C-alpha cells in the first residue's frame, strides 16, 4: 500500500499538481507514526499501514495557509474532519489536493501486547494476518482481533471528500458495532453511579492536553483554557473537580462539530474514554434534531448552529421529541 501511495504522490509532485505531501512517518517506535510533510526527495520516509492512525485534517489548517499546494492523504474517517474544517473556513481548500487512501482499520499495539506477545520488533500485515517479529521468534495474529476500538464502529469506506482516491483492491474494513452501547449504559446508571464513573475516569487525567491538541474540532487560535483573560485557566488549578471540568467543557465546545473520529481517546496516555462524552452529545443531537453526522455533507446545517422557521422553542424541544 505504501508503494502505491508513493507512486501516486510522486506522479502528482512530478506533474506539479502540488509541491509537498502531508502524510505519516515512523516515530520513535515503528507503531508510533506521526504526521509529517514531505518534499519530493523525502518520500522514502513516507509510510502507510495499520499504525497510520493520526487524523491529518487538523494539520491542514496551518499547512493550507502556506504558499503552494499540499497533497493531503486522508483516510475515509479523516475526510469528515476535513469537511468540518472547510465548513468552518479553517482550511484553504484551494491549497489542498486531497488523496483518499483506503483504510483497513487501525491497529492497537496495546491489544497486541495483551495477547501476551512481548519483545515486538516489527509487524508486517499480510492479508488478514499480522506477522509479528519478536525477540522470541515470529508470531502471527488475526488482524481483526487487534483493531483499535474506534474502528470497531467504522463510518465506512467512502471518502466524503477527495480529489482522487487510491484503490487498493483489498476488501475495505467496515465494522458496524453499536457506537452508543456504552453511552446507553451510562444513561441507565443512577446519577450517583454516573458521577462516580466519570470522577473515576477523569481523575486519571494528567492534563497533558493531548486530547485537545489532537482534536480537529479543538483548533481555536487561542484555547480558552490557555487564555488568562478567560479566567478559567487559573480555575482548573483550584481543585481536582475544576480540573475534571476541563473535559466536560471541551465536550460542550465541540458538540455538534465533533465528527467522532476518536482521536481524543486514542491519544490519551491514561486511557480515559473521552469519546463517550462526545458520543453522548451526538446521541442527544440525533434524538432531538434528527440524525446528523458532522462533516458528512458540507452543505448540511449544523444542528446546534442553524435554525429555521419550523423550529420550536427550546423549552419544548424535548416535550415534542425534537420535532
Amino acid at each position: 500500500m505504501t508503494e502505491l501511495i508513493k507512486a501516486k504522490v510522486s506522479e502528482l509532485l512530478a506533474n506539479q499538481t502540488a509541491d509537498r505531501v502531508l502524510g505519516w512517518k515512523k516515530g520513535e517506535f515503528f507503531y508510533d507514526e506521526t504526521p509529517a510533510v514531505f518534499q519530493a526527495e523525502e518520500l522514502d520516509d513516507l509510510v502507510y499501514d495499520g499504525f497510520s492512525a493520526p487524523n491529518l485534517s487538523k494539520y491542514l489548517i496551518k499547512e493550507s495557509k502556506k504558499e503552494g499546494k499540499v497533497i493531503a492523504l486522508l483516510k475515509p474517517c479523516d475526510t469528515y474532519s476535513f469537511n468540518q474544517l472547510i465548513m468552518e473556513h479553517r482550511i484553504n481548500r484551494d491549497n489542498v489536493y486531497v488523496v483518499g487512501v483506503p483504510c483497513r482499520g487501525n491497529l492497537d499495539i496495546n491489544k497486541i501486547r495483551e495477547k501476551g506477545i512481548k519483545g515486538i520488533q516489527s509487524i508486517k500485515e499480510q492479508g488478514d494476518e499480522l506477522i509479528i517479529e519478536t525477540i522470541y521468534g515470529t508470531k502471527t495474529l488475526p488482524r481483526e482481533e487487534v483493531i483499535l476500538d474506534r474502528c470497531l464502529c467504522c463510518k465506512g469506506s467512502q471518502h466524503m471528500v477527495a480529489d482522487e482516491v487510491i484503490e487498493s483492491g483489498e476488501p475495505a474494513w467496515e465494522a458496524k458495532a453499536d457506537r452508543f452501547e456504552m453511552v446507553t449504559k451510562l444513561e441507565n446508571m443512577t446519577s450517583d453511579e454516573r458521577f462516580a464513573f466519570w470522577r473515576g475516569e477523569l481523575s486519571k487525567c494528567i492534563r497533558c492536553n493531548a486530547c485537545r491538541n489532537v482534536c480537529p474540532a479543538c483548533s481555536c487560535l487561542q484555547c480558552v483554557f490557555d487564555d488568562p483573560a478567560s479566567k478559567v485557566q487559573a480555575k482548573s488549578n483550584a481543585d481536582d473537580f475544576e480540573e475534571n471540568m476541563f473535559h466536560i467543557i471541551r465536550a460542550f465546545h465541540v458538540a455538534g462539530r465533533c465528527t467522532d473520529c476518536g482521536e481524543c481517546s486514542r491519544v490519551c496516555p491514561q486511557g480515559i474514554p473521552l469519546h463517550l462524552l462526545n458520543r453522548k452529545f451526538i446521541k442527544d443531537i440525533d434524538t432531538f434534531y434528527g440524525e446528523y453526522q458532522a462533516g458528512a455533507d458540507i452543505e448540511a446545517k449544523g444542528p446546534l448552529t442553524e435554525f429555521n422557521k419550523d423550529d420550536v422553542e427550546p423549552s419544548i424541544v424535548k416535550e415534542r421529541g425534537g420535532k
Partner: protein
Amino acid sequence: MQKIGVFICHCGTNIAATVDVEAVTEAIKNEPGVVYAANYQYMCSENGQALIKNAIAEYGLTGVVVCSCSPRMHEATFRKAAQEAGLNPYMVEIANIREHCSWIHKDKVEATEKAIILARAAIAKVHLNAPLISGQSDVTKRALVIGGGIAGIQTALDIAEAGFEVDIVEKSPTIGGKMAQLDKTFPTLDCAACILTPKMVDAKSNDKITLYTYSEVESVKGFVGNFEVSIRKKARYVNTDLCTGCGECTTKCPSRKAKSEFNMGLMNRGAIYIPFAQAIPNVATIDPQYCIHMKTGKCGLCEKVCSAHAIDFKQQDEIVEQKYGAIVMATGFNLINLDQFDEFGYSKYPDVVTSLEFERLMNAAGPTEGTLLRPSNHEHPHTLVFVQCVGSRDTSGCGKPYCSKICCMYTAKHAMLVRDKYPDTEVYVFYIDVRTPGKNFDEFYRRAVEQYGVHYIKGMVGKVTDKDGKLIVQGSDLLENKQLKIEADMVVLAAAVEPDPSARSVASMLTASIDTNDFMTEAHAKLRPVESPTAGIFLSGMAQGPKDIPETVSQASACAAKVIGLLAKDHLVNNPCVAQSNELRCNGCSNCEKVCPYGAISYIEKEVNDHGVREVRRIAQVNEAVCQGCGACTVTCPSGAMDLKGFSTNQIMAEVDAICR
C-alpha cells in the same frame, strides 16, 4: 474597587413575608466593595428611589444593586433613578429576590439564605460592570400588520387614523377573516357582515393603508424601528388593476371541484373565484390546482368571457420589499382538526357539523341562503344537539388544555337563533360549564334558557351513531345522574380554537416567542399584554389567545396605540448591551453568524497584528445597531472571542462563583 450600594425591597409583604430583609441587609454589609446597604418597603416608589439617589450622592457609589422583583419589571425604573443621580444606568444590577426567591419558597430561613446568595451574585457582577453608552437609531414610520381579519383591520385603521402608513398582508384572496364567515354576533345579534364589511371598505379606501391580499411574509430582517420585510404576492393569474369583479368568469368556469373555503367546504366553487360577494379586493383569483387551462392547456373560458381582459395565465409571484418600524401579529385562528374526536362521528355523518359550518348554514349568503337544512338530505331539522368543549379544556392530550372562551356564547347564540327562526325545533346543549363573563353575556345566555327554552344539559356526549337517518346522541346528564339518548337531526360541535398554523413560522421569522400552544407570548401578561417580548412586535387578536370579537377589537386598538407610540418617535435609544468580537481570538468559523437571529454579524478579511505576527484573517464583526444582545453568539463561539457587553462571560462566571462560594 467599586463602591457599591445595596438596596433591599420589601415589596410590601411580597418579599418581606418570606425573606428576612433585615438579615439580608446585615449579611451583605460585609461583602467586598459594599459601602452602603438599606432596606425599604417599596423601593420602586418615589421615596425608595430617593433613597437610592441620595446614597449615590452621599457615598459616591459607583455601582448599585437592587434586591427586588424581576429586572423585567423595574430594571428600567432603577436605571433611570441612578442616571438622574449622575450614575451610568448600566452600573445598576438587579437581584431578583421576588420571582426567583420569595414567591417560590415557603421556608423563611431558606429563602433568606437564598436572597443573600442572589445579592452576592449581583454584587460580584457589579464589580465587573463598566459604564455603557447607548447609540441611537431611526424609526421607519410605517407599520406592517400580518393578518387581515377583524383584528388586523382594526389595528390598521387605528394606526392609519394617527397618520401613519400601514400595510396589511393577508394570505387569502380577501380581507375579512373569520368574522366575515359569521352570521350574527353575540351579545347584540347584529349581523357580522353589517358591522364588518364597512370596516373592510374603510381599510380599502383609506389612503394610508395598503392591502397585500393573497400575499405572505417571506422573510423579516432588522430590528425595532428598522425591519426589512419581503412580501410574496402570490400570482392570482388575474390582473387586479383590470378586473372589475363582475363575476362573469366565476359563473362560467366549468371546473366545480374545488371546495369553497368561505363556505367551509359545504359547497363548491369555480377554479376562478371571488371568495364572497363583499370580498375586498373584489377581484377574481385562479386556483391553479383546479384550473383546467393551467393543468391541461385547454379551456381558457374565463379569458374569453372577461371583457376587461384581466386574465393572465402567465402571471408570476411578485416579491415586494418594504421597510417597517413596527410589525403586528394578527394571524388569527382556526378550529382544530376533529380527526381525534371520532366519537362524535364528524368524519362519518354529514349532519354532524362544526360551529363554523353551522354559521354558514344559517347565513343568508351561505350555501342554503340562510334556510337551515340538514346537509345530508336538505330537509328541515327538528332536533338539534349542540356539544360544547369539543377539544377545549382537554388534558387527555387529544385536544387543547385551554378554554376556547367563545364557544359558550356562540352556542347560546346558535341555540337562540334556531329556536327563534324555527319554533318547531327542540334544541339541546351539552356543556361542562357555561362561562359567560362579559358585559351582557350572562343575560344573553339566560335568555336562551328562559325565553327560548333551550335545554341545557350538564354533561358530555359520549358517542354519536346513526339509525334510520337519525343521529343517536348518547350522553350523560350529570345533574340528574342519568344516561340520555337523543334522536337528533343535526349535531353541532363547538370545536376548540387554535392559532393559525402560519403563526409558528411567522413568529420564528420575527424571533417572537410563542407558548406551548403556539399562541404568541406577551412581554408581560398584565402590564404589556399587546407587546411581544421582541421589541417592535405587537400582538392583536386570537394570535395572542382565545378571545371574542368585542375583546379582539379592544385589543386591536390597544395594539395600535402601542404601535403609534413607537412610530411617533424619531429616534430609538439602542440597547448598549451588544456583542463585541475580539479579533485576535476569532477563528473565523462563522458559527456566530449562523446562530445570529438578527443578521447582526458579518465577516471581513482583515490584517491583524497578533503579538507581532501580522496576517490577514477572517474576522467576525458586529453591527451594533442591529444586535439585540441575545447572547446566542457568545455561547456558540468556541474560543470566547465573542462577548456581550453588560453580560460578559466573566461577569456571569463571577455570579456563578459567588453563588457556589
